[in-house]
Structures are given as C-alpha cells and as structure tokens.
C-alpha cells in the first residue's frame, strides 16, 4: 500500500492520497473544495485542475474530449478522473473551487411569545451534612419538588456527572433546566438561556443564535454545506451513500462539524458558550434531514420516494454529536414527502401561508423547487426538478452568487448594462442575472417565444457552431474570453423555468383554479429573494399577475426554525401543517408532459400557443 502526498495550490493545503484514490476523493478528505456537480462521474467537467508536478494516471477518454492536447500537455485534468502514482503538486483554479458565496441568513422577521419546550427553575439547596448525607442529585430533585412543586423523575447522565462539582462551585445555587420531567442541564444562576436554529440546505447552512426568553436573534451566520464535495444535488449524494455506507458516516460528520463550528462562532460573537445552548431546531429538505440523522436514504431516490420518517423528532444532541448543553435536545420539524421536507413546512409556518384565506402560492426556488397552493382552506404541494440552472449550473458562464457575478442586467439598444456583486469586474453570471438576461433578450425580440436566438442583433454571433449573445465582449474584458449567453444556456433555462411553471400549473389545474384567482405569491429562499419579479413574470416562470401580489420573503425556512425553537405552539402548528398537506407527485400526473411542453415557451403561460 503506497500513499502519496498531494499539495493543493493556491490554498497551500496538503493531503495524503491512498492508492487507487482519485484527486477529487483525496481533495475531499483533505478539506479542499473542488466543484463536482456530477459527483465524480466525469460528466460535469467542473473539477478541472492542473497537475504541476508528479506522475498521475493517463487521461481518460472524457479528458481527451474535454481538453485540447496542448492543455493535456500543460497538465490540465479532471480531478475525478485522475489517480496519482507519485507525490504531486496540483493547482485548483478559482473556477473549480467551491467558492465562498453570498449566503443568505436574513429574511422576514416574525414574533411569537415564547412557550419553551423546557422550563428553567431557580433552585437553592442546602449543603449536605453528616446528619443528612443525602445525594446531591436527590437533594436537587427534592428541592425542585419543595420549591416549585415539580416532580422530576430522572437526570441526564452527563448532567449528573457535572452536578456535584458545579453545585459546590456555585455555592448550591443554580438554574435547573427541566424537560419532560427530566433534569437535562443545570446552569450557573447568571447564565443566559440560548437556543440554536439551523436551516440545513443542500447548498448552504444558515444558523441563528437565539435568546430563548426574548426570541431575539443574537447572531446569525451562513456557510456552504461541506457535503457539496459529495455532489451538488441530493440524488448525487444519495448515490454516494448507496455505493458506500462510509459516505453516510462522513457526510453526517461533515455537517455536524460545520454546525458545531457555526455555533462556536455565533457564541463567540454573542459572548456566550455553546454549553448555554439548551435546545436546537433543524429544518432541511427530506434528504438533508435523513443524512443529518444518518437515516437510510436509498428509498428516497426511488419511486415512490418515501421518507424513513415524516413525523417531527426529538433527538438527544449528544447522540448526534452536537456540542451544546449536556442532555439538551434537537427538534426536527416534520417532513411532507420524499422531495418536500421540513424546510417547506417551516416556510409555510413562518409566512402564515398555510392559513391564508385568499388563494396563495408559496414556493421556494432551488435545485428542487417546492410549491404549495393554498386554496379554499386546502394545501396542495408538489416538488419540481428545476435543476441547477438558476444557481449557475450547466450555464456556460454561470456561477454562484459570489463576488464578480453579474446579478442585474439590462439590454439597452446595442449596449448591455449590468451590475456585479461587490461591484468588481464581471467574471460570470449568477441566477438573478441569468434570469434578467433571459427576460431582456426575450423582450428585445432577440430570442423568440420558442427560445431561439434570432440573428438580428450586433451582439449575436456564432461561436463553435452555436449562436450566442455577448454580454461582455473580449474587448470589454481586456482580452479575456467573452461572457455570453449561448443558445444551449437558453435551453437549460427554459427547462428550469418550465419545471417550475409546470409545478404551479398542475396544482392550479387539480384545484380547478385559474391564474387570476391567485391573490398572493410568496417567494422564499436565497435565489427567490434576489430576483427581479418583473423578469420572472416576463418569461412566464411566474404567473402573469400584478407585481404587488408578489412577496419576496428571504430565508423563511430559517424564520420558521426560529419560531419552532422558542414556541411549542409553533411546533404543534408545524405538525398540523405537515399532516394537512396533500402531496401531489408530478411524475404521476398524466397532464405533466403536455403542460411541461407548453411551459417551455417564453412569455405568459397559455393553454394553446401555436
């Protein structure tokens, strides 16, 4: 068994590469973030790296296709296809790195009065004496009974280990946290009571540190979900688990480490300690939920896509490896279906969409878009496979919402005006920019309603046999390759847009609702809160309604998690929502293909178009 040392530049990170391990796998284990949209099957070409020195396996057939012979000579390779056979030095170009991106934590703010899942009692007990040599914990339980008329029946084992020392050092005075008749934690009398709310997304994790008594957010932060190295979409990740059970362990570990790190950071920011966190709430889609709990996921990916569990769960944080107060619990909101998870329940809860009196569409746009229609007191929900196009995936110059991404765009005659994130020179185009581009091209008649680029504009050209519209030309980029929207990009966007519109339409159709009946459209999620609604309506991704019927609410799932953290009543509502929702499987809708084909046209959705 040989082992090689791999040097990853420009990060300066070093990793050990085992025999028969690809560069991508080695990078993963070494904490180097290399894009791998396809999960390492050689299909996405996102994992380009350059081998600077050392010997590696010969290029595979895909690599001969992807790279020119000159590039291969220069050492360009796909990390997932390359197996080191000596120590190596590798460059990971910026394009291939899972970049730090704009991570949304803010969203609508809502208040509920706290109804905590535990109670906190101030207790002072008498020191033991030779006359009454009663055990420390027993005296604590007696004191709870005498001073607060509370019969506790058990004490968490870790807390028990702390009790003798802590009571003595605190001079027999403490705050006792009781949950379902169990002493879960004891706190110093001046300690704060904190909670942690987590929105566990496929791409991002948002965390909020909350004061449990006021409901106030003390600190918030978002990071990339480190599981991303195991594939960008959930199917790719599930596939990894099906192939190796070890992947499940590693992926759970990655998420937990990330959450532990987040909570440590948040506590540092708020001058607190993670042991003061008395409760945690996690919401995520069903796959993230299952991977977090290391529940089996295989059945999620295959028809009929059933979760291992949909009911809300309470799990001891310690059992998961979450570093918060000893004995504290993690509450997981209920799921709805294999592809509609707790995060959707959470957003329905936070936005009050679930009890809307007027006809409402509530949706969260992402690689998987979940849509609910609330009509006549009923909630129907579906999931559409919109794909990664609006996150920049499969788009030639697409990128995530990171510095240098074109995020807003206008076509004005022969000119293109744009705005980039952080205002620097453009390096690519992110979801909101891509959407603007499509709408602007359509409205300027540069593409027709079937999505075809018409050769009628000075910025339209043919490149490698394909029409494309030049957003930023080579000259405008001082000789760097132009940033363009290709005909193929437009097709990818049409698929994504059609998937979303079809989801909405099928829900309307089965409820015998028409577009005009919709009185409000609530758009949640990071992408949804940065988009121009104008553009989304223009291309027909959203119903043609007056703009004042749309609301962009930001990270509503995160808000729902915060509500559930401090309010047992909100938890009960969440369970009620999950049980009330009627899930509609698009795959089984006989109308799907017809509607989908129709929804591929740009412009307002119509029943007949030609």
């Amino acid at each position, binding site marked *: 068994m040989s082992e090689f040392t791999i040097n990853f530049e420009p990060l300066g990170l070093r990793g050990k590469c085992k025999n028969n391990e690809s560069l991508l796998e080695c990078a993963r284990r070494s904490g180097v973030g290399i894009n791998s949209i396809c999960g390492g099957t050689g299909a996405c070409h996102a994992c380009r790296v350059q081998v600077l020195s050392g010997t590696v396996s010969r290029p595979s057939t*895909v690599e001969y296709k992807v790279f020119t012979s000159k590039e291969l000579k220069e050492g360009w390779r796909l990390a997932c296809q390359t197996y080191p056979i000596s120590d190596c030095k590798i460059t990971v170009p910026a394009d291939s790195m899972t970049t730090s991106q704009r991570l949304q934590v803010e969203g609508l703010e809502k208040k509920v009065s706290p109804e905590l899942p535990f109670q906190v009692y101030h207790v002072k007990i008498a020191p033991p004496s030779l006359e009454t040599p009663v055990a420390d914990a027993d005296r604590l339980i007696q004191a709870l009974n005498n001073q607060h008329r509370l019969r506790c029946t058990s004490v968490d084992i870790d807390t028990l280990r702390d009790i003798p020392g802590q009571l003595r050092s605190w001079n027999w005075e403490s705050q006792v946290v009781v949950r379902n008749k169990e002493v879960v934690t004891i706190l110093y009398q001046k300690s704060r009571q904190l909670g942690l709310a987590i929105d566990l997304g496929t791409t991002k994790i948002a965390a909020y540190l909350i004061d449990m008594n006021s409901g106030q957010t003390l600190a918030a932060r978002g990071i990339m979900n480190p599981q991303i190295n195991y594939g960008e979409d959930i199917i790719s990740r599930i596939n990894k688990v099906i192939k190796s059970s070890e992947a499940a362990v590693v992926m759970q570990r990655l998420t937990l480490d990330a959450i532990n790190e987040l909570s440590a950071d948040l506590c540092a920011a708020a001058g607190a300690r993670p042991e003061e966190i008395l409760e945690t709430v996690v919401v995520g889609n069903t796959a993230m939920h299952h991977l977090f709990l290391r529940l089996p996921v295989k059945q999620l990916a295959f028809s009929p896509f059933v979760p291992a569990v949909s009911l809300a769960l309470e799990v001891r944080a310690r059992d998961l490896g979450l570093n918060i107060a000893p004995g504290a619990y993690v509450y997981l909101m209920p799921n709805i279906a294999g592809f509609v998870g707790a995060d959707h329940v959470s957003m329905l809860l936070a936005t009050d969409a679930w009890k809307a009196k007027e006809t409402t569409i509530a949706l969260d746009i992402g690689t998987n878009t979940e849509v609910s229609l609330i009509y006549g007191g009923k909630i129907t929900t579906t999931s559409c496979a919109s794909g990664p196009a609006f996150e920049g995936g499969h788009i030639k110059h697409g990128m995530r919402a990171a510095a240098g991404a074109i995020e807003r765009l206008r076509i004005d005659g022969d000119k293109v005006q744009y705005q980039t994130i952080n205002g620097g020179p453009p390096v690519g185009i992110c979801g909101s920019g891509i959407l603007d581009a499509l709408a602007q091209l359509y409205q300027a008649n540069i593409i027709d309603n079937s999505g075809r680029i018409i050769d009628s504009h000075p910025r339209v050209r043919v490149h490698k046999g394909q029409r494309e519209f030049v957003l930023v030309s080579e000259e405008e980029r001082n000789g760097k390759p132009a940033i363009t929207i290709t005909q193929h990009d*437009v097709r990818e966007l049409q698929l994504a847009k059609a998937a979303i519109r079809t989801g909405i339409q099928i829900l309307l159709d089965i409820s015998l609702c028409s577009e005009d009946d919709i009185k409000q459209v609530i758009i949640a999620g990071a992408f949804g809160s940065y988009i121009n609604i104008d553009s989304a309506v223009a291309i027909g991704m959203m119903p043609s309604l007056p703009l004042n019927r749309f609301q962009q609410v930001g990270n509503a799932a995160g808000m729902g998690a915060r509500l559930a953290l401090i309010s047992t009543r909100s938890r009960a509502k969440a369970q009620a929502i999950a049980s009330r929702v009627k899930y509609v499987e698009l795959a089984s809708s006989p109308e799907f293909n017809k509607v989908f084909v129709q929804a591929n046209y740009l412009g307002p959705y119509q029943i007949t178009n030609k």
Partner: protein
Amino acid sequence: MNKDLVSTIADLNEQEALKIVKDRLSAGEDPLKIMEDARKGLEIVGERFASSEYFIPDLVYSGEIMKLITELVKPQLTREEETRKSGKIVFGTVRGDIHDIGKNIVTFMLDVNGFEVIDLGVDVPEQKFVDKIKESGASIVGLSGFLTLAFDSMKQTIRAIEDAGLRDSVKVMIGGGQISEEIRKYTGADAYGKDAMAGVTLAKKWTGVN
C-alpha cells in the same frame, strides 16, 4: 417542388405543408415518396434540435404535423408499404427513473426513420427488457435514464440481457441527461447517444440502413 415539402416541414409551417401534401396526393404522386420527403423534413427538424436551434415544443409540434400528414397519406398506402420497417428496437427508461421526455423524442425520431420501436415506457424492470427482446427478436435495445441512479439500473439491465444469453444478439445504446463515454463503459453498453439524431445514426449503422 419535392424540396418544398422537406423545407416547409423543417420550418414547421403546418398550413403550407398540409397544402403541399394534399396537392401532391391529388396530382397522383406516389404516397411513399411524399412520406419520404416528410421524413427528410423531420430529419432536419431533428438536426436543428440537436444543434439547440429547435427545442422540445418545436419537436412536439413537428410530431403533430407529421401525424396530420400521415393521416392524409395513410389511406393511399397499402398495408405492406405501411409496415415496411427497417429494424426492431426495444426501448425504455430504466428501473427507478421516470423521465420520458427525452426518450419519447428518440423513439419518435427512430419511428419516423423507419424503425419499429417497441416502447416499454418508464421505470422498466430488467426482466421486462429481457422478455421483450426474446418475444420480439429485436436486434437493438435503447436504454434511457436521467438520474445518476439510472447508471446502475442500466448496468444491471445489460447484465440481465447477458445472463439471459442475449447479449450477442443485440446492440445496446444508452442515452439521457448526463450520459457520457465513461458511463457507457461503466454500464457495458455498445454505444451512447447524445441526442435523438445520434440514436438514429447508431440504429442505422447497426442495421446497415443508410
């Protein structure tokens, strides 16, 4: 005049195409020749689709035009002419996967190019492929799949064909979303096709039809 039908269909001009067909029929032209032109028109549509110039709705529309033309021409065709097919192909979306839009495009293009397609639908278990190959004596199998998970179903389907002792009597092509040469190798298929026209080209090559 012949070229007209080809290009009007290629340009998706329904009214014009139907008019030309009617005119040519009433002029007593060989219905097979008309069908051949219509097929050529659809082939161009397929090429334009492959180059991204046309898209799914355009294809569906071309299919509708073709249906109308066939309805006009069919009464004039003898039974024998109608069923003259150049090869049998068993086609389906593999187990666990229900995506069929791409598959339907391929089977449509194969059909208009004179192949007899036995479409098994979606989420097709391995054994069903094996049974149908035996029953029909097809010489080509087409497997479609869009999920990463479909790669394994494809592999297992091909293994099942092998276990049934049929591997040498059929050629297997695969295709769909993320399929690549690497995946072809992984599954053990004979070839993969990037789009519907690639599937037609493969089928023609394997059956020796031009």
